[in-house]
């Protein structure tokens, strides 16, 4: 196990972490402001991946496809908010979970009707293929590096919007006292729809960036959604900073675990046992991490409510 390999896996972990962050940021914003648990957030991730793949094929231009995919997910997100979720803000979390569970079934099946159940493979333009040189002759795929850069840029942008703009001020105000914000003459309904749409677009961005790396197929959103839950539980719900830290921790731990746990166990216990226990333990690692964090800090690392 060389250091170059460890470094590469660390980068992979970071790359997965920023994608988890894009998902977690939207979910935690929507929860923080509207007090809404949205299981269908993973469906928006899937919608983003499919729309971008379809638009790229249709226009023949990758960037145009990405733009259309993002815009499409934004519109789908806002439509879902207006049609289905608006009535659920005053309900308890149980009702929200159940209704958004219904939405997941709907979206998965709708996608299967339109595009079929077989995984979709999207191609990258030439300038995103290939590798960049790192130190000591090791290389890293351009595309994954681009995902990391985009993810960190979006995190910075999000920080700027939330702390430095009028919209961000309304978002923070809405999170701490909704009734008061409404009483001060802010169109709270519109604010909710805009925030939900932005959260959807972030999920869509994560989805369309995931497309070329993982398989694009119905149900792809659920796998990442549950890991996003782990991120949010670790980071503390409603906190964007917590989402960022939690996402990177989970991304790195999960990736390193899958890459190195088996060989590492192999040095301690017989190889056949390591062969069996390694993958099992690796896939359970982040959940165990979550249990430990909860045992120490039941409200997460950056709880603000």
């Amino acid at each position: 196990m060389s250091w170059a390999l460890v470094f590469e896996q660390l980068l992979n972990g970071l790359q997965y972490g920023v994608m988890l962050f894009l998902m977690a940021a939207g979910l935690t914003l929507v929860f923080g402001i509207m007090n809404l648990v949205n299981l269908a957030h993973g469906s928006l991730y899937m919608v983003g991946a499919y729309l971008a793949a379809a638009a790229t094929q249709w226009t023949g231009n990758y960037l145009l496809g990405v733009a259309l995919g993002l815009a499409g997910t934004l519109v789908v997100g806002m439509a879902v908010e207006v049609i289905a979720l608006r009535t659920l803000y005053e309900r308890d979390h149980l009702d929200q979970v159940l209704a958004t569970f219904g939405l997941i079934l709907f979206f998965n099946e709708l996608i299967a009707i339109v595009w079929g159940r077989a995984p979709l493979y999207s191609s990258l333009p030439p300038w995103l293929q290939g590798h960049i040189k790192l130190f000591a002759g090791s290389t890293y795929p351009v595309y994954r590096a681009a995902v990391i850069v985009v993810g960190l840029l979006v995190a910075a942008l999000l920080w700027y919007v939330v702390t430095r703009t009028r919209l961000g001020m309304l978002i923070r105000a809405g999170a701490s006292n909704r009734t008061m914000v409404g009483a001060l003459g802010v169109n709270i309904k519109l604010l909710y729809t805009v925030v939900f749409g932005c959260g959807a677009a972030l999920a869509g961005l994560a989805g369309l960036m995931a497309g070329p790396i993982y398989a694009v197929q119905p149900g792809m959103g659920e796998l990442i959604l549950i890991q996003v839950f782990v991120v949010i539980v670790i980071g503390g719900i409603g906190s964007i900073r917590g989402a960022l830290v939690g996402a990177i921790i989970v991304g790195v731990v999960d990736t390193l675990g899958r890459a190195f746990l088996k060989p590492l166990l192999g040095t301690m216990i017989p190889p056949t046992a390591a062969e069996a226990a390694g993958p099992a333990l690796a896939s359970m690692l982040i959940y165990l991490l979550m249990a430990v964090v909860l045992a120490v800090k039941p409200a997460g690392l950056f709880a603000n409510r």
Partner: protein
Amino acid sequence: MRARLILWGIAGLLLVALPPLATALGQPYYVDLVRRILILAIAAISLNLILGYGGLVSFGHAAYLGIGAYAVGILGFHGIANGWIHLLVAIGASALVAAAIGAVSIRTSGIYFIMITLAFTQMLYYLGISLDVYGGDDGMRLRSRSQFAGLVDLRDPVAFYYVALGVMLLFVFLTYRIVNSRFGMALRAAKSNEARSRAIGFPPYPYRLAAFIIAGAMCGVAGALYANHTGYITPGLMAWHQSGEMMFMVILGGMASTAGPVLGTFALLLIEEVLKGWTEHWQVILGPLLVLSVVFFRRGLAGIFFKPDA
């Protein structure tokens, strides 16, 4: 109260009379279908104990269905076919896992509890996938059904049907007794007002944890029966769709009513059956139906027919 008893009487008679009727009509498929519903109703009854009466929104109850099923499958794989041992291990393992998950997750509440129970069940799901010896992702065929020497043969579909019906009725009765015991009252008190319950000397944690363990163990029995029903175990039993469906069974039927989950299970699975007959893409209809039921149909089926118990 009288109308209620009569309704239940008719429903019970129908369930008892179903196998001979279906056989006479040459439709043995219905015995199979209703048996599956009865077994899942047992799971829903157990979930109702914590969700309906305890107010614990567990989004991971499928875990115990899976553990019960895997107990039967794994023991059978190693040549142990004795049904009583199967049941004992299914109950014990489910209770143990429920104790571990409950001990961590009941410390939290609200949305955290939902996410954590979901995450832990997902963990078990991945564990099931990585168990290559027991079929991994594809699952595994049972070597043999659980054997209850001389008592009943589960390979006989009708006999198995009556076993499922009997266990379900037993669990309805058990839940009724638990909920109306001193323990059940403490559990319900903690749901309706945690602060007051604490103030009068009933800290919710131990009651909730105990209920969580009991519910897990009950669901383990359902899992053991389910494995015998399908003759097949797969990690898919622990998938989160299963947990979500179980919550819907409870909610559709009406939370916190003893037999509500049974009604809900029948309603959900029969609707699914009808939709599956219409189209391959039945979920595209079921999804919006479920959303509508949450928005407009708040008290569940039991709310239409009866006054809620609690």
